[in-house]
């Protein structure tokens, strides 16, 4: 099966990702021991004692093996600052980030697919030009600006959505959606523009293909040609880029969660970095990196579903 064939490379990637995460976070400037003790208590002896206690003086390979061994059992250590287990902090915050991220992608796709198709179908017309310049415009606006505008419109002027804060889904699903909508929309705007551009380009190419002419000459309606014949073969780069863009969404969520005061992983990471909470930073970074790899692996699998030529292998026996 295709999934099984891809599994070894997934494992190799995950290993590399964990190693890189560890190295980069370990090399962050600043001494965690200093942070833990505070400036007034930081005698050289005290610092040495804390460092020995945390294992910070061990060679890097030893520290990595300790860390990754524990991480594999779900133990990321405890926060230097709050003493809260890192894994618990992450499990608490992850659903928030996942929800606004997924919501953002869904919103972006729901808008981009019809708009991109329309743009391609009317390529060169005024509709197309309007859509194109709008997407370029949206791409140029940073997400925090979008967020501020959205807050201004929907929270301040119209007063229909909350400007900040978070309600858990289990507490109140409706309020949960309301609190997720503006952050998700802020993340979605730029994605929307990227997806629209991509789909438009690929779709224009597809619509010039012989098999589209063949479909027309079979008497297939335009709508059916667009949705049934052209959409799937035009969505390969969209899929790939949507996977890659999950990175941009996670990056964006650091800003957006801070702006909307959401208890998400992005804000957790930002706060941990600011206070040199090393184990917290490492744990969060690892979870983010692994999610990213897993998302792209899933995209890869979906891709093979979208394009049968991949799962059958391009060199499949030709009869």
């Amino acid at each position, binding site marked *: 099966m295709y999934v099984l064939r891809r599994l070894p490379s997934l494992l190799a990637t995950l290993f590399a990702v964990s190693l890189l995460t560890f190295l980069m976070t370990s090399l962050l400037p600043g001494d965690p021991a200093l942070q833990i003790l505070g400036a007034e208590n930081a005698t050289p002896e005290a610092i040495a004692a804390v460092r020995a206690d945390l294992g910070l003086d061990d060679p890097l390979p030893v520290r990595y093996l300790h860390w990754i061994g524990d991480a594999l059992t779900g133990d990321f250590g405890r926060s230097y600052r709050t003493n809260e287990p890192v894994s618990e902090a992450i499990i608490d915050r992850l659903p928030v980030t996942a929800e606004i991220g997924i919501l953002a992608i869904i919103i972006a796709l729901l808008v981009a697919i019809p708009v991109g198709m329309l743009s391609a179908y009317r390529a060169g017309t005024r509709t197309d030009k309007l859509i194109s310049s709008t997407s370029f415009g949206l791409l140029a606006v940073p997400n925090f600006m979008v967020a501020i505008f959205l807050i201004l419109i929907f929270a301040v002027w119209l007063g229909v959505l909350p400007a900040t804060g978070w309600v858990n889904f289990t507490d109140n699903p409706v309020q949960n959606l309301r609190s997720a909508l503006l952050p998700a929309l802020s993340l979605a705007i730029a994605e929307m523009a990227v997806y629209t551009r991509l789909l438009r380009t690929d779709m224009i190419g597809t619509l010039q293909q*012989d098999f589209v002419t063949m479909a027309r*000459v079979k008497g297939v*309606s335009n709508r059916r040609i667009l949705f049934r014949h052209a959409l799937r073969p035009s969505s390969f780069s969209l899929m790939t880029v949507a996977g890659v863009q999950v990175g941009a969404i996670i990056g964006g969520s650091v800003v957006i969660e801070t702006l909307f005061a959401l208890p998400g992983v992005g804000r957790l990471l930002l706060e941990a970095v600011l206070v040199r909470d090393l184990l917290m930073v490492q744990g969060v970074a690892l979870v983010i990196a692994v999610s990213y790899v897993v998302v792209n692996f899933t995209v890869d699998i979906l891709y093979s579903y*979208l*394009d049968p*030529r991949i799962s*059958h292998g391009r060199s*499949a026996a*030709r009869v």
Partner: protein
Amino acid sequence: MTTARPLDGRGNEPLLEVDDLRTYFDTPRGVVKAVDGVSLRVDRGKTLGIVGESGSGKTVLSRSIMNLLPKNNTIREGSVRFEGRELTTMKNKEMRTIWGAEMAMILQDPMTSLNPVTKIGDQITESLGIHLGEKGKVAKAHAVDLLKSVGIPAAERRLGEYPHQLSGGMRQRVTIAIALACGPKLLVADEPTTALDVTVQRQILDLLETQQHERNMGLIIITHDLGVVAGRADEIAVMYAGRIVERAPTRELFARTRMPYTEGLLKSIPRLHQPSHTRLAAIPGRPPDLVDPGPGCPFAPRCNYAQDKCLTETPVLAPHAAGHEAACHFPVGTTAGQDALARNLAAGRTAAGTPLDSSTAIATAGAA
């Protein structure tokens, strides 16, 4: 309809009648006159071969006939009547009841004319559903029959396969099955065998021929290879620079070629009995620019017979024998033509300034 002549059944309404069709493209370079006044006619059960070099406008002509060209930047004049119905003014909505059901088409490259992500069965049953209202088991059984009729083994299994799992020849059979699915009255095949190797070419052409006879269908075979249509077409129209420059029943065309261009095409077939896939590059020189052709015969710069008159006056199709027309001031095989060639030979060059060495000229005279 002033120029094209019926092959038989005079008085019957022709299946397809194209009258002075022009198709121009408005491009930044200027107006490309891809099809420039073409008239032709196809009767039920008959085959018309359209032959011409690359860029002579064959594909544009076929798509213009089928009403498939995009409306923007395209200027189209003249008329296309299918069973008496005018197609040029028809909206896409109306065309969709004709496309697939009454007029069908096969394209040059079977590698690209099937949807790569859709199962073959679904691609066949789609038009069965649209035009015949067949669904589910009925449609599937019909699709199996169609695949069998175009000579695809293990038809049931093929329904669930994707195009990339089939060879080029098999794919072209599938596109033929799709084209024939709803029993069209006219099939337009735009270079149906160009992308295939020689043995497969012959099989596909034979298949088209048998299907056509079984269904009494009109067939247009477009090709750049005169050998492809030699034994198969009832009538051949030779196209050059967007115009038809010679037209005759097949045997007549081969026996009494009138147009020097056709003569060149004929020479590029090595042996008539061999299946040929020789490109028509055998004629020296390049086809003219379609943007601003200028006065005179468009073929004159490449023609051994070219005289001063050819550089200033554009020849029009003129009758030579029953059903045989050619657009040439000094036709091959006439005294005017012989004299023109002799004059050019003596001068060592044609009126267009093209050098003429005696070896080419002897070969030409031999073919004529």
